[in-house]
């Protein structure tokens, strides 16, 4: 379940702007996902490319040397919407189970 969530987060960041590996891991960290090591994104990026959800393209970066920038494909956009939908319906249910006592006490 958690693997799919990291994929969703990576797709969402790439949807906002084309990124390369280093900036992608930076953004994940800045959003509070500090538990996962930076390298973890590379197997995920490979998988997303294999599924045709993202494509990489060599472009010059601000820092100078060419970097592989990733952009979303139409299939990737579709997959992201699916993940968003699933996550939306998942969150209240999981909250309900995990924090049942809290909700009950609050009543």
């Amino acid at each position, binding site marked *: 379940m958690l693997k799919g969530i990291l994929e969703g987060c990576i797709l969402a960041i790439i949807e906002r702007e084309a990124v*390369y*590996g*280093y900036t992608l*891991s930076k953004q994940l960290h800045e959003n509070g996902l500090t538990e996962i*090591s*930076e*390298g*973890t994104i*590379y*197997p995920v990026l*490979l*998988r997303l490319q*294999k599924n045709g959800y993202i494509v*990489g393209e*060599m472009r010059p970066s601000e*820092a100078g*040397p060419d*970097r*592989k920038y990733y952009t979303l494909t139409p299939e990737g956009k579709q997959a992201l919407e699916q993940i968003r939908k699933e996550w939306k319906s998942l969150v209240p249910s999981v909250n309900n189970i995990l924090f049942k006592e809290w909700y009950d006490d609050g009543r």
Partner: protein
Amino acid sequence: MTVDELVKLNNEKRKLLTEENEAYYTDLVVYLRMKWRLSEQQTEEVLMEMLDHLLDAQKEGKSAAEVFGDEPLQFADSLIAEIADENPLNWVEFFGKLILQLLGWIFVIRGAIIMLFSFFTEVKETVYMLQAAVFATTISLFIIFNIWFMLKTVKKNLFVFPKEKKRERKASMQVGLAAGLSMLVLLLIIKFTPEMGPTFHFPAYLSLVLGGIMLLVHHFLKKV
């Protein structure tokens, strides 16, 4: 970029790593390149991406272990699981070229040796087919065994930090010893295999010409 260009650039950029980061990253490189099943292009591309990442992280004072985790072997395996297989056609091409080159050299060397010795003594230019088959099998096994043993030794010493000179020397000695011993066996088999099987005449000049053509073809194929 082609695989060759990526490998060259990788070697250049790796020099910018600190000693500790270089040891960690190089083991990743060796481990991934040893997986001969994988697409070379994809492997080199992701290695380059990670090298750029590590160089950026290094500027911020981070270590390779902080970037890629404390379990490099597991991390490498998770990458390998996602890299596509090499196109089988590339395999046929790779082995085809290798065999062409090997046979080319064997023919050229055979031709040259016979010509050289024929100045001093009578040399037979006859090929005994069964004997030649034994030689070919033995030489193939010799090559396969030594590559296998070398890879096995390298693999055993991957992801062991810090790198110790003593360990590396021991590994080199093992590989050298295996090569020496198997060479001895190879020579003994060649010396004691009797002339047997159907024969045909394969003169030295033909051996030279044929081997030369094979090496030329190989040379041009390499450029394409």
